């Protein structure tokens, strides 16, 4: 009895330490992003540095939260179950539009705006997840028996079909059983977004509870020189990080449940899983639906935050960005997914974009060439500055070149990404350890299939 007790407490302590250090890794990554951005703000624009830092931090936090949530959801598909879904944009679109249609006002104030059902936000969020999972089911029923590369093409084609349908005039406003609603077509749709509702309630420059609490302890945020929109953004960023934690918890629990072990078994060898009597088709369909629901919800919380959405947001690019984030972090690892999302959003996506804005302002007026031909011509005359100026002001394009090169490099050199080398065994006990030898190195058998650091 005492042996099992002590084993249990050791296991608990170990798990705590592991999750603790995982949390630390995530926190360090995000902190590094913040430090760099604040450094950029103070270096390039000392006068406006506080407000600029706030701008940076609120946007990058929202980016990190959005990418981390989507990467976690994709990790359930690709990392755990081995389903090569590259239709993330489409499932996000379904989620965001479901929320938009459900929460748009029945009688819009502006003439010509698309009416909806006028439901509250929580109904919209549930609807987002439900609609995306239904579309996921409709996709999964026929498509999951296809080879991985065919599934990839089907999902990316589906996401384009969804975008084209949302863009179509035919669905922009329809009347069914007396209820008029629609997608708004190419001009998009307005509704009450989660960011103004949630963050606006929590933080109002005068009346919100966060402001109230700060004023009560004698801190007046209104004197910091930060714009109210940035406060709202920062609060909403925290909301997204909390949602990310919820996603993480859900997927961590799923991954370590009997259900999750079957998923990992399917990823490793579907035939074996089927031979053991598991209805792998059902497991794959369920996993696909859950992942799609999370993508829809993540889309609604992230892309749908401001209360406006239009089809151009859901081009396939976003899918590939999420995929790259997952590969950077390491497919199969939830912690890796979050870190991959943060690294992608912070270092590869957001930071270069901001540098492309602030550096040209710091260069002498008219230093950068208008086009690359002039820049190269100046180079012939020994003047490097025009080319530098041109390069820096086009850094938002060059960053995608860098992201592509990094992806190729990762596939060639480190296909496991940052944390993909971690083993999460599909068995409930660690079969790499023979009974009797397990205790000698002080490492207990991972009876719950939990993550262990190598």
């Amino acid at each position, binding site marked *: 009895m005492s042996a099992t007790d002590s084993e249990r407490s050791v296991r608990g302590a170990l798990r705590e330490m592991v999750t603790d250090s995982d949390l630390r890794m995530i926190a360090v990554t995000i902190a590094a992003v913040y430090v760099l951005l604040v450094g950029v703000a103070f270096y390039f624009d000392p006068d406006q540095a506080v407000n600029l830092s706030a701008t940076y931090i609120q946007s990058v936090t929202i980016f990190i939260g959005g990418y981390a949530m989507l990467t976690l959801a994709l990790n359930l598909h690709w990392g755990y179950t081995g389903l090569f879904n590259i239709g993330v944009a489409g499932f996000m679109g379904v989620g965001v539009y479901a929320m938009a249609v459900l929460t748009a006002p029945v009688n819009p104030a502006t003439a010509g705006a698309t009416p909806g059902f006028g439901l509250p936000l929580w109904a919209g969020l549930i609807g987002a997840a439900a609609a995306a999972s239904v579309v996921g089911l409709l996709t999964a029923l026929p498509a999951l028996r296809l080879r991985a590369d065919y599934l990839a*093409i089907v999902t990316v084609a589906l996401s384009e079909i969804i975008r084209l349908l949302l863009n179509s005039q035919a669905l922009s406003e329809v009347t069914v059983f007396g209820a008029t609603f629609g997608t708004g077509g190419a001009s998009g749709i307005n509704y009450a977004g989660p960011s103004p509702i949630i963050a606006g309630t929590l933080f109002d420059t005068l009346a919100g509870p966060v402001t109230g609490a700060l004023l009560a302890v004698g801190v007046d945020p209104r004197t910091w020189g930060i714009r109210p929109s940035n406060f709202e953004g920062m609060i909403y960023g925290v909301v997204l990080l909390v949602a990310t934690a919820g996603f993480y918890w859900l997927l961590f629990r799923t991954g370590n449940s009997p259900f999750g072990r079957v998923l990992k078994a399917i990823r490793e060898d579907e035939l074996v899983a089927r031979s053991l009597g598991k209805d792998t088709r059902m497991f794959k369909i369920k996993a696909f639906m859950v992942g799609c629901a999370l993508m829809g919800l993540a889309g609604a919380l992230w892309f749908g935050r401001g209360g406006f959405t239009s089809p151009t947001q859901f081009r396939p690019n976003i899918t590939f960005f999420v995929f790259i984030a997952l590969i950077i972090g390491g497919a199969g690892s939830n912690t890796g997914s979050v870190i991959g999302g943060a690294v992608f959003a912070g270092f590869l996506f957001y930071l270069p974009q901001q540098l492309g804005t602030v550096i040209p302002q710091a260069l002498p007026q008219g230093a950068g060439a208008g086009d690359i031909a002039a820049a190269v011509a100046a180079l012939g005359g020994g003047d490097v500055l025009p080319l530098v100026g041109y390069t820096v002001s086009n850094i938002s394009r060059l960053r995608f070149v860098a992201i592509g090169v990094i992806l190729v490099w990762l596939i060639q050199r480190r296909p496991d990404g940052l944390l993909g080398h971690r083993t999460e065994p599909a068995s409930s006990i660690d079969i790499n350890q023979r009974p009797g030898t397990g205790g000698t190195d002080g490492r207990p058998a991972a009876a719950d299939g939990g993550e262990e650091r190598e």
Partner: protein
Amino acid sequence: MGATETYSRGVRFAVERPGTVILAVAMALLSLDLLMKLLGMELFFLGVKLLGGSIGTDAFGTVLLDGLTVGVSVGLAGIGLSMTYSILSFANFAHGDTLTAGAFMGWVVAFGLAGLLGATGDVTPGTLVLLEATPEIGIIRTPLIVVVGMVAAGVAAVGLSLLLDRIVYRPLRSADGISLLIASIGVALALRYLIAFVFQTSSKSVTSTPLQVTLLGQISMSGNQFFLLVVGAGLMLGVHVLLQYTKLGKAMRAMADNQDLARVTGIPTERIVRLTWIIGGGLTGVAGFLIGLERGVVIFNFGWLLLLLIFAAVILGGIGSIYGAMVGGIVVGVVQAMSQIWIPSELTRAAAFVVLIVVLLVKPDGIFGGVTTA
């Protein structure tokens, strides 16, 4: 007895493959509807128009010709994708951007030549090289410039394909298809935004208003469109001859079937892979240039936007089948163009993708399934 046997076999087929039957019924209905529309007949049931309507034969001819043009260009571009898919066993997502890169290089050469020949008026070489000027280029006005540009596009795409194979795909020869697919996504992103870095993201107008040609006194089209159709058909025929009657074609088929066995029989697999990239890349570059010529504009992501259509063509025809890519391309083009008879024109691309998905679900081997690289 024969009739009952046929009947029972039909019932069994309907039970086993309901999807195929539904598809066949839908196709039959659409064909009937099209026929009635062309004849100007209408069928009413309880006051609701079920089938028919009216569409002029002229309008129908235009739609068909547009579809054929898109189809030939997509089919031409699809051959390369189909070849790499069967021989290197991966879906190359960078194929569309290879097409863009080839097209841009071809047009840069064409513009440069136009500048040398003094066809551009008073512009600096810089604006010319970045495709900012609008010289009078067209197959009838300036055949030499167009042909040289087209060849340059092919050569540039070949060079790019070989370079990418050397630095990206060769180190991954032993990797699985999905790793290669992901690597090609990286290549696609890098290429596309490299083009955007140099040429910016605005669309470049590359031809002047094209001169028209009239065939058989009936069908009128632009000279550039006619050139695309002729060159496309010619190149497809050339590839057919190449693969059917040369040892290279046989070696490619052998490699697509079984790489190890091919190597054992003494086929120089690396050389065949290189030749695959050369043929596929060349056709892709030429296709990109011709699409630019026909549309009159090129933009940094037009190959990427075309990629899914090319995939649709290749899968429709059966991956690895060159004829499949050609036929699939034409089918996809015609389907896309003809679907606007029934659905809003903004959804024609969606219709092509629906066809793609349906083919993958019902007959993943494609029309020419089972036959690889020939």
